[in-house]
């Protein structure tokens, strides 16, 4: 059987000034796989995600997406990003648009979908993330959990082939974390290829196929969920786990 590498990162390096933030990082993600990335603050998790959709150009190494080397796609970066959804820690809903308009914007302005069709798409997606009733609310009228679910719907509206989540629940009150993770887990279960930076080990246990552990810019461990939670992990990863679990 040929393993389909949907996303393949080969030895990427990235420095900000004299600080090397990514050190020869390599990883592969198969189609429909959900990979959870964990690691201490400053270990380079966000930079890794941002280099995948070319928000952060890498210094060296290669990134293959759906079989193509995208690493040096400068001019066509926006076309690649149309296929990759991203969800941020601080939601970043467009403040001047209502929930439904947030979801409609990209299909209309980027793909040229008519406003009626975009509205249908948006309403469907808001239903999927469980907040159809908030369609006309503005971001500042929504709770954090609701905003994040709208942000997920906004990303899904472009029909992405890959979803990147950067600590999607870190800015949320505990009671709202669940509603967001449920939506993400459901998407993963439906086969949405996803890379999730999170410290929610409950989510990792439930939805992840693989766990990647990063420290000081290096990928220290990349284990299947079973291996990882079965205890056969690297000492440093184990110590980090003990820290965040206790």
């Amino acid at each position, binding site marked *: 059987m040929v393993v389909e590498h949907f996303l393949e990162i080969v030895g990427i390096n990235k420095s900000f000034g004299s600080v090397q933030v990514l050190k020869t990082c390599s990883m592969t993600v198969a189609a429909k796989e959900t990979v959870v990335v964990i690691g201490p603050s400053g270990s380079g998790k966000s930079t890794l995600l941002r280099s995948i959709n070319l928000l952060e150009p890498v210094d060296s190494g290669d990134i293959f997406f759906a079989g193509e080397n995208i690493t040096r796609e400068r001019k066509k970066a926006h076309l690649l*990003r149309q296929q*990759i959804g991203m969800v941020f820690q601080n939601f*970043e*809903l467009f403040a001047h648009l209502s929930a439904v308009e947030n979801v409609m914007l*990209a299909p209309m302005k980027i793909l040229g979908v008519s406003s009626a069709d975009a509205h249908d798409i948006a309403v469907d997606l808001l239903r999927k993330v469980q907040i159809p009733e908030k369609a006309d609310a503005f971001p500042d009228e929504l709770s954090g959990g609701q905003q994040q679910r709208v942000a997920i719907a906004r990303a899904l509206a472009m029909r992405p082939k890959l979803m990147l989540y950067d600590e999607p629940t870190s800015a949320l009150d505990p009671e709202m974390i669940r509603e967001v993770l449920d939506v993400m887990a459901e998407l993963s279960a439906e086969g949405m290829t996803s890379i999730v930076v999170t410290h929610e080990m409950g989510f990792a246990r439930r939805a992840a196929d693989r766990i990647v552990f990063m420290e000081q810019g290096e990928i220290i461990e990349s284990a299947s969920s079973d291996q990882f939670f079965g205890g056969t992990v690297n000492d440093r990863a184990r110590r980090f786990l003990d820290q965040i679990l206790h």
Partner: protein
Amino acid sequence: MSIELVLHYLVSSSFIHGAGMTLLLTVTSLFFGVMIGLVLALIQESRTRTGQVVTFFYLWLFRGTPVLFQVIFIYNVLPSFGIKLSAFVCAVLALSLNEGAYMAEILRSGLQAVKKGQRTAGLALGMTGSQMMRYVVVPQAARIVLPPIGNQMIGMLKLSALVSVIAVEELLLVANQTASADFRYFEALTAAGIYYLAMTTAFMGLQILIETALDPKKRQRMRRVPLTERMLGTSKSFAVR
């Protein structure tokens, strides 16, 4: 004072022309001022070294000298370089160049007020840089810069009186000429004052209208409520806000 004479001045063709000229000066200078300001703000945003130097020099020059000086300078010095422009064009040129310096600061602060994360979110969806500016940054910045631009508009109306020194037939010059011909300063200046107040009031009203149109919440709530209900004030959702 003779109220009849004030009314007579108000409807006289010279006053109407003067007020029209003041309005034209204000609107055109403001328009070009915004354009110059926008170019300067974008140059500053781009953060290139020459851009920074050019904009710094511009702001230094035009904010560091009186507008009256700029008006007189342009009117009297350009002809000696062989550039012959009408008094009106000189007036608009001076007022726009000066306004541009202030507009640049206003527009730049508006653009900067839109947080970096909003831009990143636009790019991450797959927008090009210009789509991101157009659909994400500018609509949000517009709301921020509108109140200060409204103030500039009213300021410009008052500033336009300065160009009477280069014999542009605007409201103040007309009033002054009429007054000294008829020796009726009180009436002539009252008529001019009424025009000025009427125009500033109209500008303020316009500002409120545009602010409402740009406020997405107000706009949406207006749209959802039929016009008749809005006017009769019978709708609940309208009463809430």
